[in-house]
């Protein structure tokens, strides 16, 4: 169910060649994920501010994996939408899932003692943000940012 919805979301955003899979198991992997994301996005026409937004959003969704699922992965790839190129970031895990997504997307809501800004914040930093979650199955967040 999760993977089907995810595949559909991915199919809508035509994929270019580059694709990177970064396992998220330890806190050090957050650094790797955001550095790789920034490096990949920097091959497109993004301003340095936009690169920072992308790297920060990746950091937040990767942190979300560590905090709630323990382990998961970040998939980074370049994509094309019409004449615009962009970066698509998928953060997926097989953790406990999110029972109430609208609650999880509220500023300040956290069950992990954090600021509760990670997911709603990441959504504000990116152009598109989609979250699919099944309790007991896991969570998949697909977010993207496009060149102007």
């Amino acid at each position: 169910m999760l993977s089907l919805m995810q595949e559909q979301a991915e199919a809508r955003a035509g994929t270019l060649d580059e694709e990177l899979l970064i396992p998220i198991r330890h806190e050090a992997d957050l650094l790797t994920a955001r550095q790789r994301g920034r490096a990949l996005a920097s091959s497109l026409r993004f301003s340095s501010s936009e690169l920072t937004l992308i790297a920060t959003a990746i950091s937040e969704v990767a942190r979300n994996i560590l905090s709630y699922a323990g382990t998961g992965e970040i998939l980074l790839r370049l994509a094309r939408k019409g004449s615009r190129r962009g970066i698509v970031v998928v953060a997926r895990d097989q953790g406990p899932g999110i029972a109430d997504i609208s609650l999880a997307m509220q500023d300040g809501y956290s069950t992990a003692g954090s600021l509760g800004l990670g997911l709603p914040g990441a959504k504000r930093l990116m152009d598109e943000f989609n979250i699919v979650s099944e309790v007991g199955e896991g969570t998949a967040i697909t977010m993207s940012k496009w060149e102007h």
Partner: protein
Amino acid sequence: MRAPILKQGKYLIGSIQGSLSDADLLALRDELTSTVREQRSSGVVIDVTVLDVLDSFAARTLRTISQMIRLLGAETVIVGIQPEVAVSMVQLGLTIEGAATALDLEEGLALLDARTGRGARRHAR
């Protein structure tokens, strides 16, 4: 240590040298608070110039460091937040309230002088 702590008179300077992991940030917090006490420092500057990302954990930790140091009777100034990082922090909804900020190390030290009342003495000299 990716963030060596330098002593300059009554002040400490936490100079971040590269991307910091969460563990590095927490180590900096512990090191700064214990050094403030040992050295009887009245102010701390944390230089984040090299950081290209300040996410929610980093912002929260900087805020926590500042609060802890205030409890020890000293002031903290965060310096060197890059313009891109500021854009990102505002969009994320992050604040580091409680910690003063300044453009760079020089401004940060001047702000500490003003806040700890050393500015007047320095002028009088």
